[in-house]
């Protein structure tokens, strides 16, 4: 039996600001050198659990604790945040927001600075740590200039430099594109091999399972529902009912009627026993395969030959063409810096292109001001807090109309209609501060929809959302789309692309790389890796199961999934 480093015994926690406890009767032991995934939907208490371990609870967030929690034999109630921070290092989500230093070296050194380590020793230790995580060539850079994967390395080094034995990753994948996420998971795996105990809090299960983990702890409503090997937990079939999405290839096997047991090793496609599911997958595909008929759509918006550069030196958009068809829901994908947001800003008129035109139904949009253009194309920013300026929901949605001097009785009519569509009616007289993140998102969507734009652009509509909220938002957008609203989604989320959009435009290094069916992009390894996406596991499964048309298999899965929704 290995040494226990963290032990929860009948542990419970309640925030002072909340009426109900967030955690109930948690019993959990984490052993030295283990790699553990704590999964659970938003509001399940998984972040709270993490905060209890690293000491932010009770030091930064107040509340009452019951039961006991010990970290390396130290009772957290009687320890200080600093004592704990030397045992557990925490890598928070959103590495951008947590850089303290102006240079990579300085940021890594922060914990040492606070520890009063002399400068000479500090320089040696920083250098050693930077070499360990392979960032030593960037020590002088500003952390913000780095790529997503490099940023992760810097935050990791900044935490590990303190010689911690336990590392806690709080939603490490939340803001990363699939490819960078994969690199981050591999990096965590390497760290784990250095005899560190690793705890990952995350709801993107399939991405975490890219590297093997020892145990999967499933949390729901503040209680532990499952605590076992990933194979066993997947076999229990408790993930989906608790708002966690299972890996797509597992879903496909379930569709095909393959019983998911721990014997077929479902935790990874590499270990999955294909001989058990091969026949059933084949049979299911034969029974369900059919070609969808294509419907021709009318082009609504055409951006042609767009060039744009911020500094006159580097082209961000280099002769890009894009057509948006009436009534479609399409995805605009590509890695960070590929020009997606810039293209969206050109379409909405926030930026003037250096060359090229944007036309809607043949009419050139360049003669309209930003605010006039909002009646053609509306954009919803990723962070709802960046858009909300009123205290009350009704006023927030009415804002755009009131500024346009629309008569108040018409304002009321239109706002109420939009509230109905967005499912906000029950909250009509609520203050915005009382809403959840997903509901706020709806308010921002509503505040744009009320202006009746022909096209709605959403920047990462589901970023950081768990499966339940993700499905909620997407179902809502789907309903809008079915009612004829044309929608463009800027996204990294492969599931979203695969399941909800018909078409994807891929931008890479300022040029358009592809314009084809979303699932085709995700089945083309070369194309998806250039866009920092990954080949979907469905496609890999189909190839492994020797299905003669793997692309057809993916299409077939998506259709069945849609029908089940």
């Amino acid at each position, binding site marked *: 039996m290995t040494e226990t480093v963290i032990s929860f015994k009948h542990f419970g926690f309640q925030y002072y600001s909340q009426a109900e406890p967030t955690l109930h009767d948690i019993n959990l032991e984490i052993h030295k050198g283990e790699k553990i995934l704590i999964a659970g939907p938003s509001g399940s208490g998984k972040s709270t659990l993490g905060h209890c371990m690293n000491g932010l609870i009770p030091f930064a967030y107040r509340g009452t604790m019951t039961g006991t929690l010990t970290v390396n034999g130290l009772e957290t109630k009687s320890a200080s945040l600093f004592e704990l921070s030397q045992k557990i290092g925490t890598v928070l989500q959103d590495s951008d927001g947590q850089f*303290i230093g102006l240079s990579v070296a300085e940021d890594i050194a922060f914990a040492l600075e*606070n520890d009063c380590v002399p400068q000479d020793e500090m320089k040696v230790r920083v250098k050693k740590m930077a070499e360990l995580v392979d960032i030593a060539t960037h020590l002088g850079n500003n952390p913000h200039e780095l790529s997503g994967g490099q940023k992760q390395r810097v935050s990791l080094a900044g935490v590990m430099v303190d010689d911690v034995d336990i590392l806690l990753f709080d939603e490490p994948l939340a803001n990363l594109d699939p490819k960078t996420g994969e690199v981050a998971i591999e990096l965590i795996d390497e760290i784990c091999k250095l005899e560190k105990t690793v705890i990952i809090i995350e709801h993107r299960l399939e991405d975490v399972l890219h590297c093997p983990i020892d145990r999967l702890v499933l949390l729901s409503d503040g209680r532990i529902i499952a605590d076992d090997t990933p194979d066993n937990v997947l076999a229990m079939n408790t993930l989906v009912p608790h708002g966690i999405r299972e890996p797509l290839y597992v879903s496909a096997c379930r569709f095909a009627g393959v019983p998911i047991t721990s014997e077929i090793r479902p935790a990874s496609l590499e270990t999955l026993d294909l001989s058990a599911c091969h026949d059933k997958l084949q049979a299911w595909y034969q029974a369900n395969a059919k070609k969808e008929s294509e419907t021709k759509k009318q082009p609504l918006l055409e951006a042609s030959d767009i060039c744009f550069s911020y500094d006159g030196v580097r082209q961000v958009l280099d002769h890009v063409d894009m057509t948006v068809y009436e009534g479609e829901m399409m995805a605009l994908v590509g890695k960070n810096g590929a020009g997606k947001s810039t293209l969206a800003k050109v379409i909405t008129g926030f930026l003037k292109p250096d060359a090229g035109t944007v036309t809607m139904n043949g009419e050139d949009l360049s003669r309209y001001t930003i605010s006039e253009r909002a009646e053609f194309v509306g*954009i919803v920013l990723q962070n709802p807090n960046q858009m909300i300026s009123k205290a009350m929901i009704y006023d927030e949605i009415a804002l755009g109309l009131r500024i346009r001097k629309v008569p108040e009785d018409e304002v009321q009519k239109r706002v109420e209609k939009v509230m109905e569509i967005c499912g906000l009616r029950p909250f009509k007289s609520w203050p915005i501060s009382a809403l959840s993140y997903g509901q706020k998102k709806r308010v921002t969507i509503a505040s744009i929809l009320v202006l009746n734009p022909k096209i709605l652009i959403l920047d990462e509509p589901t970023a950081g959302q768990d499966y339940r909220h993700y499905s909620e938002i997407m179902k809502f957008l789907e309903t809008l789309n079915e009612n004829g609203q044309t929608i463009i989604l800027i996204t990294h989320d492969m599931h979203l692309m695969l399941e909800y959009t018909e078409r994807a435009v891929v931008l890479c290094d300022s040029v358009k790389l592809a314009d084809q069916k979303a699932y085709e992009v995700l089945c083309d390894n070369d194309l998806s890796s250039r866009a920092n996406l990954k080949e979907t596991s469905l496609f890999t499964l189909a190839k492994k199961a020797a299905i003669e048309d793997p692309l057809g298999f993916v299409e077939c899965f998506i259709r069945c999934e849609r029908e089940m929704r």
Partner: protein
Amino acid sequence: MKTKLFSYNQLDTFIHRLSGLTKLLCFILLTSAVMLTYDIRVNIVIMILSMILMRISRIRFSQIKIMLIYVMIFLVTNFILTYLFAPMYGTQIYGTRHDLFVIAGNYVVTKEQLFYQITKFSKYLSVIPLGMIFIFTTNPSEFASSLNAVGVSYRVCTSLSLTLRYFPDVTRDYTTISLAQQARGLEMTSKAKFADRAKSVAGILVPLILTTIDRIDLISNAMDLRGFGKNRKRTWYARRPFKGSDNACIAICILILLVTLYIRFFINGGYFYNPFVQ
């Protein structure tokens, strides 16, 4: 085109290598020298010195272009207004009157007035480049560490350097929010009435404050988790030890200040240098 205002540029020149504290002290000393006298000779010497320093620190013209434009607008306005409000102030100070030409009515241009105003102009021109050098060549963290070294609390120093570090982020947020609100119809251009514009600004500030609070919350957690505030002291990675060159620079600046004070009290015999009375 985005120019980074007020941002430290990382280069390795003699000026960059000096400690931030040295640069601050020298800035204060030289500014005092200019402010404590009203002598165009002192101004010109310091102006030449600051141009040379600017050259050494390799500040590119494009970096300071926007700032320079604003400064020039301010200086020219100042120049004109000074004349409009007190066209005879020069003759009062210097006690003589040499008319050059008449503009209209009482507005006569005198040698004294011209000399007085040019001296004032050169005063600004000698000090402003020094300020720019300080801003562009000082690493905020290193500056924070030198402030800490002279006894300012490290919490204050750290928040100072964090503020500088977050300035670009907040600017970016501001642009995004402002554009999004304009799309909803907020009028930000001069077309709108003042009251409407004030309202529009509120429409941008609320989301900006909210997102900034989110940022602060995140960073303070990140800092707590990495042991910020653990001890009464902290060390600094970016700290530059005070070197011979630092001492030399400060000594030179003190010398310059002393010389100007000598000129003021023993040569000019007062605040103003008066070439009109021999």
